[in-house]
């Protein structure tokens, strides 16, 4: 009995053992099938469920002024997208989201009610706001980390910097020209999700490696600001249409300020007229008027004429072919210096007659008029300097006093800087260097001499002549600054009438261009005011703005006054009035 029982138990144990072994073998076989035979296929399936491949883009690089102040930077933002097909209650979702984003609820409802698989909800949302919307837990609403361009100084140097579009691509100004440098690099990465759908987002950190390079400008934020202020005052007080002001270091060609008025705010550029976007100092050409006489005098001096050479100025009226040119006052005999000081058109025309068209043309072309400066800004104008062989009699006369020739503000500032620095035409410099996201210098731009245009002796004589312009008898007395020897030249040009032949009545461009101090010019400044009302002479309209920009820049840069006025004490900056 006991033996039977034991045998049965033994048999059962054997069966159970066999079953267990079979089960284990089965498990092993299944495991082998899953892990080895179907391993790749199944892991791909799982990957598809838990991970997603996307392309990420690094943040856009910054635009900095010469003191590393941010002129254009990127801040984090979130792009909110939707899969309308997955939204259960579009009306409710639209109401909640529209309330938070302060956007049109009706429009959003239309978007969310569609059967599409993808729709933009809003781009450039602040992370805080995005977090609030995320908290609503609306299915079918997605969030993507993004960045948004921001210009902390608003309208400051807006025409120079430009702006980016909704896709963070440069549309205007340096943002457009240096887009390939500034834009972040892209990389494909995979996001992994856990069982609850939470993103294991550790690869997101690598975004910083993809950041674009930054550009450092020669612009000085302070000088830019005070130039813009002075220009705004000049334009508004004379009810003018627009204005430009440039500040350049004559020795290096570095541009410290390029101011425009009217201005625009690149943070919401859509609210402004497209005409205000343009960097007109580089893209637009204008007739400079009498400011050109300095270059006519330079041509004469290089041909051996002396500042004391006298020219008969026909008592204020002079006929060239079928045209009659006038001076504002009746002059008889004037020296070259006096022609510049008193801004005689007839004197300038007679200088050209004496030196010849070719000499004037070569001199003007040498100063860079008629060709681009190659500053590296899109849409730069070469201006218009007709080859001298095509000049008529009146052309050579008119060009000598700045009519019949068009130049850009940049060309004029660069040309006057050549006189200031002793005769070397410098390539204007706006971008100082390109730096990587880690702060390493990638490329540096150094001052570059284009060519020598006049001898140092001629430059010195021209400086003396230009200094007389701001003296009591000159046309630019309003540009004189106490304690400094200022050199300058006024210009008042009639504007060509749009569509018709000849010049428009009562439409003028007022110009003042100059530099200081005489001995060692530190800054060259150009101010242009377009279509001022009532007053229109460069000496009345542009010269006061020139004075303000120059004086305040000297104050900021701590450039001490000259020693010719018995100056022995100076109140420290910021002292109380």
């Amino acid at each position, binding site marked *: 009995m006991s033996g039977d029982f034991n045998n049965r138990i033994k048999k059962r144990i054997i069966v159970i053992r066999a079953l267990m072994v079979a089960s284990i073998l089965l498990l092993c076989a299944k495991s082998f099938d899953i892990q080895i035979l179907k391993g790749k296929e199944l892991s791909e399936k799982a990957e598809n469920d838990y991970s997603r491949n996307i392309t990420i883009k690094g943040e856009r690089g910054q635009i900095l002024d010469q003191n590393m*102040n*941010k002129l254009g*930077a*990127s*801040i*984090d933002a979130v792009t909110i997208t939707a899969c309308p097909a997955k939204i259960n209650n579009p009306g409710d979702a639209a109401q909640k989201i529209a309330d938070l984003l302060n956007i049109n609820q009706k429009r959003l409802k239309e978007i969310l009610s569609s059967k599409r698989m993808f729709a933009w909800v809003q781009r450039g949302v*602040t*992370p805080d706001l995005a977090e609030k919307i995320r908290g609503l837990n609306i299915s079918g609403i997605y969030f993507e*980390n993004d960045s948004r361009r*921001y210009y*902390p*100084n*608003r309208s*400051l140097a807006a025409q120079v910097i430009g702006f980016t579009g909704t896709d963070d691509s440069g549309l205007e100004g340096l943002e457009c020209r240096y887009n390939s440098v500034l834009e972040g690099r892209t990389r494909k990465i995979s996001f992994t999700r*856990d069982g609850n759908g*939470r*993103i*294991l*987002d*550790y690869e*997101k*950190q690598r975004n910083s490696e993809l950041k674009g390079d930054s550009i450092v400008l020669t612009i000085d*934020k*302070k000088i830019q*600001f*005070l130039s813009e*202020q002075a220009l705004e005052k000049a334009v508004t007080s004379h009810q003018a249409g627009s204005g430009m002001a440039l500040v350049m270091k004559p020795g290096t060609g570095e541009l410290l300020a390029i101011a425009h008025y009217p201005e625009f705010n690149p943070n919401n550029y859509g609210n402004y007229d497209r005409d205000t976007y343009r960097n007109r100092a580089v893209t637009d050409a204008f007739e400079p008027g009498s400011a050109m006489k300095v270059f006519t005098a330079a041509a004469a001096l290089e041909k051996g004429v002396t500042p004391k050479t006298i020219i008969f100025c026909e008592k204020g009226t002079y006929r060239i072919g079928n045209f009659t040119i006038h001076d504002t006052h009746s002059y008889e005999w004037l020296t070259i210096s006096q022609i510049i000081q008193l801004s005689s058109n007839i004197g300038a025309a007679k200088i050209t007659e004496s030196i010849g068209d070719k000499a004037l043309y070569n001199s003007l072309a040498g100063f860079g008029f008629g060709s681009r400066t190659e500053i590296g800004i899109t849409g730069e104008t070469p201006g218009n300097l007709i080859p001298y062989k095509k000049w008529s009699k009146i052309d050579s006369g008119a060009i000598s006093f700045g009519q019949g020739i068009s130049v850009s503000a940049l060309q004029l500032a660069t040309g006057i800087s050549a006189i200031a620095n002793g005769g070397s035409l410098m390539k204007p410099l706006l971008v100082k260097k390109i730096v990587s996201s880690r702060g390493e210098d990638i490329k540096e731009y150094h001052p570059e001499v284009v060519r020598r245009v006049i001898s140092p002796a001629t430059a010195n004589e021209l400086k003396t002549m230009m200094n007389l312009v701001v003296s009591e008898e000159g046309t630019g007395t309003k540009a004189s*600054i*106490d*304690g*400094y020897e200022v050199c300058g030249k006024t210009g008042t040009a009639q504007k060509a009438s749009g569509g018709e032949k000849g010049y428009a009545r009562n439409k003028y461009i007022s110009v003042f261009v100059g530099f200081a101090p005489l001995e060692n010019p530190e800054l060259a400044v150009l101010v242009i005011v377009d279509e001022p009302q009532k007053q229109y002479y460069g000496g009345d309209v542009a010269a006061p703005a020139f004075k303000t920009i120059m*004086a*305040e820049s*000297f*104050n900021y840069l701590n450039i001490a*006054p000259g*020693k010719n*006025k*018995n*100056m*022995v*004490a*100076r*109140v420290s*900056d*910021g*002292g109380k*009035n």
Partner: protein
Amino acid sequence: MAINNNNMVNGLIPKKNKGSLWLLIIFIIFSELMVYTWIRTESTQTLLRISAAEDRLLQKRSYYKTLLAEKEVLKSDARITRIAKNRLNLSTATMKQTIYFSGNEG
């Protein structure tokens, strides 16, 4: 003794110990499974913690960047000038502050 001798002769482990050995093997395998599961769970938890920490870090960096931009706004010359003129009644420092004395220098 006879049985033991028989087992010894066959070179086998005693039957009583065989069950224990099986139990030990199953226990080891089970423990291994448990440890493996624990490691996987911990690993996922750690990944989640890392991810959450990185999210917090990114958020803080984002705030930092926004603060830097805000700082630039606050120190913009236009704003400072407006405050100086309107609230503090200050005027721009000009060359009028230069004092000239008659007579020879020095």
